[in-house]
Structures are given as C-alpha cells and as structure tokens.
C-alpha cells in the first residue's frame, strides 16, 4: 500500500510532479555536467597548453657531443603513450646555398607538426623527399618562395663534398630563431651529411603535470646514459601557474553554481510540498501517525530524487560532452563515480527539501487544516 500510495502520488499528480522532477533534474544535470568538466579541465587544457611547444629537451651530456639515433624510441618508454604529444629529434649542420653559409636541420617533420603547432607556414609542410621548409630569414636572404628550387652544397662528416637539389615546400614564421633554419627530413639530411654522427637535440612535448614531468626527467637521466633532460622552464612553470588558476576558476564557478542551484531545487521542492498541507491534515484526521506521513513524503522525495538524478546524470554527461567537443574538439572522459554521487546528492537534497515543509505541516492541527479553506 505504501508503495502504491507513493507511485500513485507521483503518477497521478503528473503536472506538479513534472515540475518537481524538472527541478531535481536541472540540479543533477548541472552537478554532473560541471563536475565532469571540472575533472577533465586539467587534461583538456593541458592538451591546449601543448601549443606552447616542447616542454622537455634532451641534450647530450658527458663527453658525447651527440645523442644516439635510438634516443627518441628509448625516451618513449618512460612516457605514457597518451601523454606524449610529440617527440622531435633534430640534427644540425652547416650548408651553403648560393655560397651563403646557412644552418640546416634534419628532423621528423610529422613530430615537429605536433611539438611546434605554433609554426606559421606559408605554403606547405614538406611531404616528399627533397622538399625543404625554410625559415623566413633564409627566404628573405636568398629570395626563395614556396615552389622555388635551391642547391645545397657542403662537406659531410667524412669530409666529402656534396651537392643536392631541394624544392621549397613552405616558409616558416615563428618570430624566433627557427626563421634562420632550413628544415628537412632526417633521411634527406643523412643523405647529405652522412649518418656517422647522431642526434643533436630532442624536443619533447609532453602533456603532464609538473611532478609527472620531474619524474620523467629523473627516470630518463637515471636510465639513459649520456643524456641530460632539461625542462623548458618558461613553458612548464608558466603552464603550471596558469593551469592552476584556470582550474581554480572552474572550481569556484562550479561551487557557486552548484550552491545556488541546489538551493533553487530545495525551494522548488518546498513549494511543491507546502502546497499539500491540506492533504497532510486529511491524512492526520484519518489517523495517520506523523511518522507515516513523513515516510510517505520522504519516499516520494527519494523516488523523485533518484529519477531526477538519473536523468541529470545523462543530461549532464551530454552537456559536458557538448562542451568538450565544442571547446576542445575532443570527447570528455566519463567519471563513473559521478553516477552514484549525483544520485546520492539529488536524493539527499530532495529528501531534505521535502522534510522541512512536511515537518512543519505535521505540526499543524488537522482540524485547522481541514477547515481553513
């Protein structure tokens, strides 16, 4: 009978219950949506911060002047697969174009795209062999534009002279030293200079917190000999400070929004229950003990809270997903603990919001309630 009364109340008083359910669902949606976003912010924003480029560089240490060719592969074993945004090895050497001495850099173009997303390219990234990306300064110096050809000459590691033709695929602008380089693939570079040397520098862009980065640094220096990993302070420190601010922002916003929403839900529930004072009086006149009236309203509240909460979990996740896709173009990671948490909180708030007016109403004399039309 208890269950029958509760469900009848919920189903047959449809319009009022929809009002109440809506209130709970809004609260739960905001709760689960914002908390999901809050938890995902460091990860998502951290990815965005990777547009600042490499935050860890590897340079040779000890007596070695170069790193081994396999260093990039070996470093990868210390970085979680999802965290490694890009790992770009560089070889540097001097070449001559039109008798002008210039710096050539051999690198993995695909990795550079990921480690240095801020490079502004006029034309295209090199794709085929014998294509090169040249810095703006080089382009100005020897008057090259995308599509034009140049001949690189020089001597390789073994002292033999070489001459290779390249096509300019694009011109890179960074506002930094990169504008004075000629970039090409490692294989083209090796073809000119020979492969007797090694890698000069490895730039890594890793999406990780400061402590995780420190951890990676110590692991690399312990496990790979003759390599000095150095954090790019300007990037890592600033990222830490800005990211923590952003997280604090979303945190506070979440707290304020949740607080206000929960009070809003509570007042709506109170309004819905207060309306039923007459019914409470009648039940008392029929001989219902206060306890059983409280239990009935509580039961309704809990059921409402559970349904509203469930609805809110789904809607909130949809909202968070929409936000994530719109802002970061990446799906959001679902926090499974939010299902029980949202349910418990919405049930608790609805229950509480029901209890206050019901308690007040049960104190009322049934006679007054019945007569006081």
């Amino acid at each position: 009978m208890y269950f029958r009364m509760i469900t009848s109340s919920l189903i047959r008083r449809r319009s009022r219950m929809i009002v109440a359910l809506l209130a709970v669902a809004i609260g739960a949606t905001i709760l689960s949506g914002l908390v999901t976003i809050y938890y995902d912010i460091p990860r998502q924003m951290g990815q965005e911060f990777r547009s600042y480029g490499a935050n860890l560089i590897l340079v040779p240490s000890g007596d070695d002047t170069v790193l081994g060719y396999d260093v990039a592969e070996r470093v990868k074993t210390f970085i979680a697969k999802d965290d490694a945004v890009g790992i770009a090895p560089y070889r540097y050497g001097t070449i001559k174009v039109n008798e002008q001495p210039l710096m050539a850099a051999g690198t993995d173009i695909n990795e550079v795209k990921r480690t240095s997303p801020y490079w502004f390219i006029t034309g295209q990234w090199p794709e085929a062999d014998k294509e090169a990306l040249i810095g703006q300064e080089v382009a100005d110096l020897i008057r090259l534009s995308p599509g034009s050809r140049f001949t690189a000459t020089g001597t390789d590691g073994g002292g033999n002279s070489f001459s290779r033709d390249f096509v300019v695929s694009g011109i890179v602008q960074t506002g930094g030293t990169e504008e004075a380089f000629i970039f090409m693939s490692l294989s083209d570079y090796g073809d000119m200079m020979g492969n007797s040397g090694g890698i000069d520098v490895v730039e890594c862009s890793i999406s990780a917190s400061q402590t995780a980065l420190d951890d990676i640094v110590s692991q690399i220096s312990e496990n790979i000999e003759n390599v000095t990993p150095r954090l790019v302070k300007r990037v890592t420190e600033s990222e830490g400070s800005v990211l923590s601010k952003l997280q604090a922002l979303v945190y506070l916003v979440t707290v304020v929004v949740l607080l206000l929403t929960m009070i809003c839900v509570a007042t709506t529930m109170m309004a819905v229950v207060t309306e039923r004072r007459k019914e409470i009086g009648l039940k008392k006149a029929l001989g219902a003990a206060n306890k059983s009236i409280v239990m009935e309203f509580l039961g309704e509240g809990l059921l409402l809270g559970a349904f509203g909460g469930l609805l809110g979990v789904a809607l909130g996740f949809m909202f968070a997903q929409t936000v994530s896709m719109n802002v970061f173009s990446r799906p959001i990671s679902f926090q499974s603990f939010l299902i029980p948490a949202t349910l418990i909180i919405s049930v608790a708030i609805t229950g509480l919001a029901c209890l206050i007016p019901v308690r007040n109403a049960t104190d009322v004399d049934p006679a007054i309630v019945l007569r006081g039309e």
Partner: protein
Amino acid sequence: MDLLELRDISKFYGNVKALQNIDLTVKQGEWLAIMGPSGSGKTTMMNIIGCMDKPSNGSVVLEGTDISKENAKNLTNIRRDKIGLIFQQFHLITYLTALENVMAAQYYHSMPDEKEALEALERVGLRDRARHLPSQLSGGEQQRVCIARALINYPMLILADEPTGNLDEMNEGIVLDIFKQLHRDGSTIVVVTHDPEVAEGTQRTVVLEHGRISRITQNENK
C-alpha cells in the same frame, strides 16, 4: 451504555469563547444531530468529539476513559481506532482512486485489505466505480466514498460534518439512507448540520447557540 461523555467543557480561542460549559452524553447506538447557526460552536464541538482538538476546560470521556489530557500522538491513535470522519468537502486524496482512498484508511489503521475495501464500497453502492479517481466521481459518489472510508475500520463513533451540505437532493437522499441503514445496524452516529431535514431523521437534536446548548429535542418518531 454511555459511549461518550462531555463534562462541562469550554473552549477559548484567545478571548473568543467558542464553547462554554457544555455537558452532553452520547449513548451506544444513538443517532444524534448537532445543530445551530454559523458561529454557534458546531465545528469546535465536532473537532473535540472527533479528537482533533482538546477543550480548554472540562473533560471528554470516551468509553469510560478521559481523553482530554492526552497528547497529540495518542489522540491520533484514538482517532484512528475509534472514530470515522465524514466531511462536507469529502476530502478525498486526489491522486488515489476510490478504492485506494478507502485502503489508505486501512493502511493507517492496520493492514490494507483490498477485498474488504471493495465490500465497503459495495455497501455504499460504488463497487463499479472503485477504480475511478475522485475527479471522475460526482459529489454524491465522492461523499459515499468518504463514508466507506469512515466505516472501513469499524469505528465506534461516526462523526459527520455537514455530510449533505454539498449535495443535491437526490444524493442527499442516498446518503441519508446509508446513515439510516448504519443506524439500524447499531452504529453510533453524530451529525453536525444546519439542515433540519437531516436532523429530523435522528433520535435527538442538540441545538447550540453562542457556544451553549440552548435546547435538546427528542425526536419521538424514532
């Protein structure tokens, strides 16, 4: 045997004296009407008889026990076990069907029993309307549901407040017939009314005026 005895009761609301020095005895099986103009204290008296309110002075003795000093919780229990209430406004729970409204009274009393509730509705001629919501029933039908609900726990005292006040003549007749039948079966009934026609059918009429009993009439035909 005396079922209910009011001994010198008074009720004040602030300075307003709603009832003053009322003495009244209701016998087992009696059918009693309380009449009087508006403001004469009918409602206050009904609330006190129905254990919904306590007198300021004097005592209420129900089946030999003084209940006027009981607390609200015990009053609720007494009301639940011994009194069946019938209201002018019917006061059915809007979201429960006729049957469920009757069962709700059973539920607060002890255990809901659908069969018994259906029988109670049958007695008031509403078996085929059992699954309807109050909003789908006419006023007369709602009042009959209210009566069925009042009867379901076999109360010692049936207390009806203007039971026909909201009904047309035909339904009034039906309801009064049910009361007559109940009386024949031995129920004790107190009806608060200002309809002389209702009072006429009862055994005794108590007339209130300005919070005092001004007149008690025995209806000889019963």
